[in-house]
């Protein structure tokens, strides 16, 4: 079974600007991968090459085994652009119908109703896009990306216009999609969100892949905290496997232990370290 998405030595130049400098990345079937990186790192370029919107200068990208941009690749994927707009004059139902026809989907009205219900827009099926809030349009965009039951989804900042409730809806949706075996490449600035839903993360910086793996694999031990009588003692640099010995040593010297916490670096710290920034004052990737 080919990977849902694969990039091999993928490079893209815009004149003198090197947007991607030889990126290798794979997203397996049913896997949810978070794509992180600062502005200008090449994330959107990578996604656009995958969708066939931009031509690679070198290397190769494949979607479900077919060259990116080919008819077969476009049949297998769904895409939500970062800066998308739908015509204001169409209703939600008409928009999905148009995309069904463009995608060759035979799902009909049932598929449209299911998709609108999935993104919480069941009551708005006849509402025109111009009468929808930005958040509703974003959710309609996600529904549009799911038309034709794609095996692989490119989602470029799918929650950028959503309130916390909307983000939660999308998180649940992503988990449901993973349950159905749909693979997702999620480009997002919201590290907390990526940490919550993604199986793996890939961090791009200046067009290069600088870190890749499960958040737990990328995390580094920051120490072990032990609550003892009236104080908390921190054993910096110690890892999980050292915790029993540390507790045993404390008990041996007469300390009463009330709690033990193994500290690991957060995704934010992993991210900032990977792109070579200090962690002070950075809540989200910029």
């Amino acid at each position, binding site marked *: 079974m080919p990977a849902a998405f694969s990039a091999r030595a993928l490079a893209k130049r815009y004149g003198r600007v090197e947007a991607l400098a030889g990126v290798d990345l794979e997203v397996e079937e049913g896997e949810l991968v978070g794509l992180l990186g600062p502005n200008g790192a090449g994330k959107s370029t990578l996604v656009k090459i995958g969708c066939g*919107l931009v031509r690679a200068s070198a290397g190769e990208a494949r979607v479900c085994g077919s060259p990116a941009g080919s008819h077969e690749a*476009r049949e297998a994927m769904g*895409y939500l652009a970062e*800066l998308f*707009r*739908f015509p204001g*004059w*169409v209703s939600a139902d008409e928009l999905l119908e*148009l995309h069904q026809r463009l995608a*060759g989907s035979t799902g009909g009205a049932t598929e449209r109703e299911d998709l609108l219900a999935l993104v919480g827009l069941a009551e708005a099926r006849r509402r025109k896009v111009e009468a929808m809030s930005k958040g509703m349009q974003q959710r309609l965009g996600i529904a549009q990306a799911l038309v034709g039951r794609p095996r692989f989804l490119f989602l470029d900042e799918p929650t950028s216009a959503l309130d916390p409730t909307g983000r939660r809806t999308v998180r649940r949706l992503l988990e449901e999609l993973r349950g159905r075996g749909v693979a997702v490449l999620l480009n997002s600035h919201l590290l907390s969100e990526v940490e919550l839903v993604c199986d793996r993360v890939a961090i791009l910086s200046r067009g290069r892949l600088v870190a890749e793996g499960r958040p737990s694999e990328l995390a580094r031990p920051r120490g072990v905290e032990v609550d003892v009588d009236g104080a908390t003692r921190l054993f910096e640099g110690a890892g999980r496997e050292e915790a029993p010995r540390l507790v045993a040593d404390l008990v041996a010297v007469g300390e009463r232990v009330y709690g033990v916490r193994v500290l690991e670096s957060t995704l934010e710290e992993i991210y900032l370290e990977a792109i070579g920034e200090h962690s002070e004052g950075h809540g989200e990737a910029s």
Partner: protein
Amino acid sequence: MIVGYALRESVRRKVLVVVLVLTAAFLGLYALGTEQAFDIVDEERFGPEGAGGAVDSRELAGATLFGLSMFGTLFLGTILAAFLTLGVVRGDAERGLLQPLVVRPIGRSVLLLGRFLAAAAVCGVYVIAVYAGALVITWAIGGWVPDRIAGPALQLAAAVAVVSALALLGSVFLTTTANGIAVFMLFGAGLVAGLLGQIGEVLGSETLTNVAEITSWALPFEALYQDGLNAITADSSGFTEIALDLGPFGGAQAAGPWLWPWTLAYLALVGLLAVAAFRRKDL
């Protein structure tokens, strides 16, 4: 599907309502002008046989007025064609409207062809309808009908199809505003070249007629328009023909048998260029 989408867009965005209202105003103005002109022709000093009896004044007035209406029809059709197509690629891509459509299996070529067919259909039907309206007005008020009826109507429809194709090609490279300016400048250049050709004919200037001819082949909407003008007075002769030749609308040059094959080839060439450029364009 894309054609239907574009047609629905025209209706929903009230493009057609605006166009219909303004076209009614244009035809109303044309009717008023026609009535006034034929009233003067019918007066004694410009009697049915003209001042000297050698020029058919009704023919002269009818052909000139109808030529003016053809110019107006082409102009309105060009505006419609340009505004339906000038932002189809780069303009829509910059607004984020194009990307969700382009990533679908239907592909870029079909998308572009669909948008062209929709624009050509809307504008073609529109110019034929306005042409027919002007024809009825001229006949009802002045009792004048052109020597050829169907050919000039089809030529106007083909002319706006050419403008649509050029605007679509421009939309691949230019922003909406720049493309709009380019299309209208091309349109103006074509018309000016046509008028220069007529002046050249009258003055016997080979240079001017050559410039006009080359421009007409480079911008065939102008050749189609000129040939259509020529056809409406195809059977005129004598001093009436000379008088029409001196006017801006009635006595244009015939284009010859290669006009239609060249127009079709031109559309195919512009279409191929647009598709090739669109397929290579990063969005």
